[in-house]
């Protein structure tokens, strides 16, 4: 048997050999345990799935942010981008759905006093196009088009950020700070400061509100027909993407390059790695994931609020990534840690609600958790 003294001495070394997210995982388990003890409804399937669905959008963004921050960059624009991409997608979809009516009313309006909305001319032209292509009024096509526009907007924004940073030599903070202001402003202009609501009767909201039934569960035992527990699509998408992201970061050449560039971009360039290209792909990936998050969120709400949707998401996303042990200066990051970070934020929010802590004070708790998490990640090994 190992004498306890030797075991104790071995502990710090064992600790250093554990994955970097071990601490975050322990914190998560402690939070779950504490919350459950105070309020057993927390661990119920419905509550857990609600929390997961609520945080899956931030989670999907955090997957992309893990790559961006491991690369040594940052993306502040994700929240605004979600609002803009979602709003634009719904607007295009609505235009396709109501093309015939739009063309008539705009032509009438044009005859009188000009175009009322700033984007009126754009929608008019789009409506004419849909009518000519014979696509107008078909819900399936319109929803597919809306989804495509949302993802494409994310991709284009990611491409733009990548180009500004790699070719324009802009600091990532600055390039995406421009996006933070710019996309929000575009979203506000698009919706005239209000909401863009989907006119699709059922199809558009299906993916955000639906899910896969968990067999053998029944939420309403008294009802004549069993009501199974639904695993929401956004949660499933987040889980699948998280697995893919983990493989991408740890087991592919691209992931290796991201870590190398994040550790030392000069050394990476000297190793014949095309640093600009790795940067562009990473921001493109971030843009794609922002598109996916926007799609699911818009579908879940069946609308986009130009002033509220995605507001301060960038802070939650960066917080989740940092709590998960990804280094702000790049070179070190794990997808597993990020997933745990997202869950910690979700559990804390839910716990504070269940414990009836004032919503005004919840931000303080979140802030404390971020600071403590980062302080705890100062490993003794890095100081030695």
């Amino acid at each position, binding site marked *: 048997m190992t004498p306890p003294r030797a075991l104790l001495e071995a502990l710090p070394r064992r600790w250093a050999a554990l994955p970097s997210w071990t601490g975050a995982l322990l914190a998560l388990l402690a939070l779950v345990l504490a919350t459950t003890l105070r309020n057993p409804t927390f661990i119920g399937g419905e509550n857990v799935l609600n929390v997961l669905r609520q945080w899956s959008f931030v989670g999907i963004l955090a997957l992309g942010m893990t790559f961006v921050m491991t690369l040594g960059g940052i993306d502040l624009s994700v929240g605004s981008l979600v609002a803009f991409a979602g709003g634009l997608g719904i607007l295009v979809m609505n235009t396709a759905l109501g093309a015939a009516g739009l063309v008539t009313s705009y032509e009438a309006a044009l005859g009188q006093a000009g175009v009322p909305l700033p984007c009126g001319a754009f929608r008019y032209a789009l409506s004419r196009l849909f009518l000519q292509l014979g696509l107008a009024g078909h819900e399936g096509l319109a929803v597919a088009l809306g989804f495509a526009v949302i993802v494409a907007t994310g991709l284009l924004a990611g491409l733009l950020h990548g180009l500004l940073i790699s070719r324009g030599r802009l600091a990532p903070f600055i390039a995406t700070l421009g996006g933070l202001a710019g996309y929000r402003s575009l979203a506000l202009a698009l919706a005239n400061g209000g909401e863009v609501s989907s006119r699709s009767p059922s199809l558009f909201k299906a993916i955000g509100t639906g899910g896969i039934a968990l067999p053998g569960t029944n939420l309403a035992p008294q009802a004549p027909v069993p009501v199974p527990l639904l695993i929401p699509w956004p949660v499933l998408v987040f889980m699948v993407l998280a697995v893919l992201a983990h493989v991408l970061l740890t087991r*592919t*050449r691209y*992931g290796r390059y991201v870590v190398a560039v994040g550790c030392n971009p*000069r*050394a990476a360039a000297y*190793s*014949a790695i095309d640093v600009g290209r790795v940067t562009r792909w990473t921001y493109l990936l971030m843009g794609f994931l922002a598109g996916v998050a926007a799609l699911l969120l818009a579908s879940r709400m069946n609308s986009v609020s130009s002033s509220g949707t995605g507001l301060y998401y960038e802070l939650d996303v960066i917080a989740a990534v940092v709590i998960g042990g990804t280094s702000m200066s790049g070179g070190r990051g794990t997808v597993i840690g990020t997933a745990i970070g997202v869950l910690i934020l979700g559990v804390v929010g839910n716990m504070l609600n269940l414990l009836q802590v004032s919503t005004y004070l919840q931000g303080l708790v979140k802030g404390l958790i971020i600071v403590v998490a980062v302080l705890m990640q100062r490993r003794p090994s890095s100081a030695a």
Partner: protein
Amino acid sequence: MSAATSPAPLVEMESISRDFAGVRALDGVSLSVRPGEVHGLIGENGAGKSTLMRILDGVLRPSAGRLRRRGVPVSWRSPAEAQRHGIAMIHQELHGVGELSVAENILLGREPGRGGFLRREAMAATARDCLASIGCDLDPWRPFRSLSLAEQQMVEIAKALSQQAEVLIMDEPTAVLTQREVGVLLRLIGDLRRRGMGIVYISHILGDVLAVCDRVTVLRDGAVVRRFDDLSGVTEADLANEMVGRALSDQFPPRSAPGAEVVFEARGIAVPGCVDDVSLAVREGEIFGLAGLIGAGRTELGEALAGLRRRRAGSIVVRGRPCRAGTPGEAIREGIAYVSEDRRGTGLVLGMGIRENLTLAALRQSGRVVVGGAAERAAAARQVRDFGIRVGRLDDDVATLSGGNQQKVALAKWLEVRPAVIILDEPTRGIDIGAKAEIYRLIHRLAAEGLICIVISSEMNELLGLCHRIGVMRAGRLAGVVEAAAASDRDLMRLAAGVASTEGTP
């Protein structure tokens, strides 16, 4: 040693030693500077000049030895403290604050003020006086970055004088100046000497040293090998001989005879500001050396050949095949690899594991998209075995390895891409003798296996022992190519320093 007529030295360094992590960089070096004296300090790269001056300047503390200021024992812990004792240094790379004005730079940290507000008129007046005292009439409000290098140097000197410096250390002050500016500077140095200042003058340009210095101390391998107290009759060749010294050890394996066929050719390589129309030809099985002083353009040439620097002109032909090598990726595909002189900054990715570093350069070539599997582990394990790299675990951070083992990882990393040409920049810098010998044997083995090896080094003896032929660079140009077996370190030093190259040895 000092004659009765000599005044007491302004500063004396006595038996100074300095160790870095167990390596002795300075061993019992003594140096004194008298009032009104220009004391030359010369030696090869790595001989210990900078370490000695960093001790005098207060950046480093000596491991052993004493400092005396006008006969009084002193010690200082920071450059600021050394400045208060009247020691000032003009660095080779000037350290002015580009965004501030001339006056603000001269008075940085000592601004005249009242109640926290600057007194601009007083600043300008002080700065103008300082500049006038060295015969310079720059506008005190010009931004520092708008000045020429010579003007920046003048500002630095004015700043030193305004701090009442009595001892001025000038590190390679003429390297960046035009011929006319050198004349101005040397006259100014003569003027400062007449005012009773003591000047330590470090330079590789031996002609300037002889022109301006009263005495010269020669360092080699961290020790004083010769002190010239009287320079009358001393020639540049005498100085060069003392600098390089002897001792060609038997750590080099015997050279095999190279073939006749030229397998690597670089023609008219030019990099703006660094390399000017350099052409090289390397034969089958030959190890080609590149010598030169710091700043001669050797590293820049190596980087240009490997696509790491943009070339303005020039072509590269490897085994009859023209290479573009416009980017590092392209260079690798065309078989040209460059092992950086800066192991920790650019050669290896510190913070990543040994395994990841070993395979990083070859990942693309391997065509594998999925990494981290058994194949990569096996490849890394094979590299560790082949190159005799002493590691704990393959996944440990590469930063945990010793210098010699890090260098082997850097080499192995590039050999994994199976290059046709490998450019080794300072392959033995900062590693111990045993590891050096291993690296030399490895280079010989590679050359014998048909790899074209170009070795850049600041150690003349290393090039003479290792290479077949050595090209010597000076100010971005190839000053000459010598057969290593027939050449001496003096020949290399003469070419590198620009002393007449064709005359016989005295």
